[in-house]
């Protein structure tokens, strides 16, 4: 336990300082140890905390961030929690881990705290409902379910996390080639539609056009691209199709949801089925469409290793015209030392499926991480941790975070007139956040994900068809979920 209590000063002084006649508050030295992945959004949090945080309770509070390398973050946290190390007071977590660690008794239920504290209630009300649904609720409630209840906090719903870094994927594209007159004319000529150049063009881009872009910009070494001879093969498009972690599920879910299909929906337990839903004809068609665009993507797409970082690298090194990737990976694209296209990149909303009325459905799978409190802390520490939450989700802090490469989940901050101008992808991010849903949160999340990734990978590497893959996934999920009493 990192808590060290030191009586600071004389009680009378502290009473005077608070200027209130309520029960005297002891000023203490409080250390909050927080497990955090080692990357800029958390580094910012720590730096900004040291600079700007003052405890409203008069404590001397230290935020001791245990920066853990991203690739090992899950292992470190999981080992710490399951072994009962009780080292952390706060933890940055992927939203999908909620189930396992709530059921294991490690993450703290904040529902009562939020209800009892108007400031926290106000924050929850200001948070985008898609984020509240994904990052905070367990058992999982969809945005629609929350909105149906209307009240915030919703009665009967348990809340756990707050956004540390809310992420969505958007389109990264090369303005120099998509807005090149010759290319635009050639595209118009070939497909009878415009090559998306402006943000508005991307708002009107569906998967069909995405495929056309892929085909159009598939150039061999020596061909001309935007009037310049290529020194290497060039590809039009790329999105994630990787075996690791969730590096294909995040994109396939988008295809399936947009076309009216569904994954096993835990918010409709226990009646929701996997068999017949996961492998419905709509879902198979959607997954097939996802697979069909791989042919236009760089050769690594044949290996099942085309994850979110590989496409980012391919884009930064000028090998591909447009990618769909997380906003969190946008900053390096603008960095001249890492990116060859730092001055040629622009961002738009991710493509979607065109519906019968002509509008485009961009439903996507949310990324990013909430942060949570753990269950073994003394009240004093919990209260102080909630003060840190309030500090973090204060609009001043949030705007500062956004200008330093972060993202905000507060609607009031997103509505700030300066917001869209702070980073080039903010407009797309705000537009996309409205479309976000999340994948499962139950403790068996990893088992579901791993098996699905494996089957998807077989389809991506051409070993089985989309139907075979989804059939295998459905069968596995049905059995596992029935065994776990999630399905009646």
């Amino acid at each position: 336990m990192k808590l060290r209590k030191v009586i600071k000063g004389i009680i009378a002084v502290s009473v005077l300082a608070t200027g209130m006649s309520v029960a005297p508050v002891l000023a203490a030295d409080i250390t909050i140890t927080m497990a955090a992945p080692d990357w800029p959004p958390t580094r910012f949090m720590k730096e900004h905390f040291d600079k700007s945080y003052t405890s409203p309770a008069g404590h001397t509070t230290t935020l001791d961030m245990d920066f853990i390398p991203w690739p090992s973050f899950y292992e470190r946290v999981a080992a710490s929690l399951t072994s009962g190390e009780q080292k952390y007071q706060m933890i940055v977590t992927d939203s999908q881990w909620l189930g396992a660690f709530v059921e294991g008794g490690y993450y703290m239920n904040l529902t009562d705290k939020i209800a009892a504290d108007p400031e926290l209630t106000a924050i929850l009300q200001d948070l985008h409902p898609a984020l509240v649904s994904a990052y905070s609720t367990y058992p999982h409630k969809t945005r629609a379910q929350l909105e149906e209840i209307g009240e915030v906090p919703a009665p009967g719903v348990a809340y756990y996390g707050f956004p540390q870094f809310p992420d969505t994927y958007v389109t990264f594209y090369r303005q120099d080639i998509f807005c090149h007159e010759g290319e635009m004319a050639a595209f118009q000529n070939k497909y009878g539609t415009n090559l998306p150049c402006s943000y508005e063009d991307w708002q009107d881009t569906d998967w069909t056009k995405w495929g056309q872009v892929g085909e159009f910009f598939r150039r061999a070494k020596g061909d001309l691209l935007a009037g310049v001879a290529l020194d290497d093969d060039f590809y039009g498009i790329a999105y994630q199709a990787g075996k690791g972690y969730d590096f294909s599920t995040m994109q396939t879910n988008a295809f399936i949801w947009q076309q009216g299909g569904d994954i096993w929906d835990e918010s409709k337990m226990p009646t929701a089925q996997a068999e017949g839903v996961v492998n419905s004809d709509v879902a198979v068609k959607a997954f097939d469409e996802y697979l069909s665009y791989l042919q236009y993507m760089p050769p690594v797409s044949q290996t099942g290793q085309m994850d979110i970082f590989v496409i980012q690298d391919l884009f930064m090194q000028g090998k591909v015209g447009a990618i769909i990737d997380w906003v969190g990976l946008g900053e390096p694209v603008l960095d001249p030392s890492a990116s060859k296209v730092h001055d040629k990149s622009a961002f738009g909303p991710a493509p979607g499926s065109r519906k019968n009325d002509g509008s485009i459905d961009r439903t996507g799978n949310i990324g990013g991480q909430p942060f949570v409190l753990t269950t073994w802390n003394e009240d004093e520490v919990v209260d102080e941790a909630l003060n840190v939450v309030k500090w973090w989700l204060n609009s001043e802090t949030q705007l500062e975070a956004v200008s330093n490469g972060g993202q905000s989940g507060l609607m009031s901050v997103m509505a700030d007139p300066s917001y869209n101008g702070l980073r080039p992808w903010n407009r797309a991010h705000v537009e996309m956040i409205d479309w976000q849903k999340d994948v499962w949160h139950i403790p068996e999340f990893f088992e579901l994900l791993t098996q699905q990734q494996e089957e998807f990978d077989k389809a991506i590497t051409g070993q089985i068809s989309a139907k075979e893959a989804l059939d295998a996934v459905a069968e596995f999920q049905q059995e596992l979920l029935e065994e776990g009493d999630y399905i009646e």
Partner: protein
Amino acid sequence: MVRKHREIGKAGWGYTATTSIIGFIYFFPVLWIILTAFKTRTDALATPPKLFFTPTLDNFTSVFYRASITTGSSQATDMGLYFFNSIFIAGTSVGLALIVGTLAAYAFSRFPLRGNDTYLFIILTTRMMPPIVVIIPIFLMFRLSGLAGTYWGIILLYTAFNIPFSIWLIKSFFDELNPEIEDAARMDGSTEGRVFFGFCIPQILAGLSATFVFGLILTWNEFLFALLLTGVETRTVPVAMARTLGGEVGVDYGLLAAIVTLFLIPIFFVTFLLQNQLLRGVTFGTVKK
């Protein structure tokens, strides 16, 4: 007329040339990693891959300093401490395993117990278990005993992991020695201590060096236990290295290569220094001198 000096087991510069070519090909991936340490990200991912480029030391700077998010000023990364930790932890644990292992190997070789081979085998099996399974109990044990995050905890753990190999390897060297020489020394009135330190140890120095080098190599890069059982102050380089594997970008090849290169230097040096011992004839050296 001058004849070429020819002897069994010796070869000349022509042979050196051949082996150098083979050695170089084998070394090429390492060379590539070292070259990458001097490349910008763009050069590291250039197509076609670049053998010649303008070298930069930025990656090495980044090993020890990172830019602040808010102010852009540079902050230390504690990597110096991690280097010290790695050297201290690996060196101590391998040394301990060597001492403890030598004693045990001597006993197994010279005073076999009944069921000697069985004991030896059981010792070996402790090395066969996939580490992932014992993590939870070890983690728990470390927490209860207060060893978590301390130098002693990780050192003892690494020592335990090095002992089986040390015993087996050192025993095979003791077995090669002629015990008659030791008996002769005993009859001349040498104490057991003198027999052990004066006769046995000097003769298996090559074996001890080999064991030390092997142990060091196996310990140097250990990742999983270091990740889970070291704290912020006792963290080792392989754990810190993982920060280059993904986050805002994918693998930071240049930075990873720079850490790998720096991290290679100490162990490369130790191996190089012990190489003579390592390669000295074991039996031959004892009989002829």
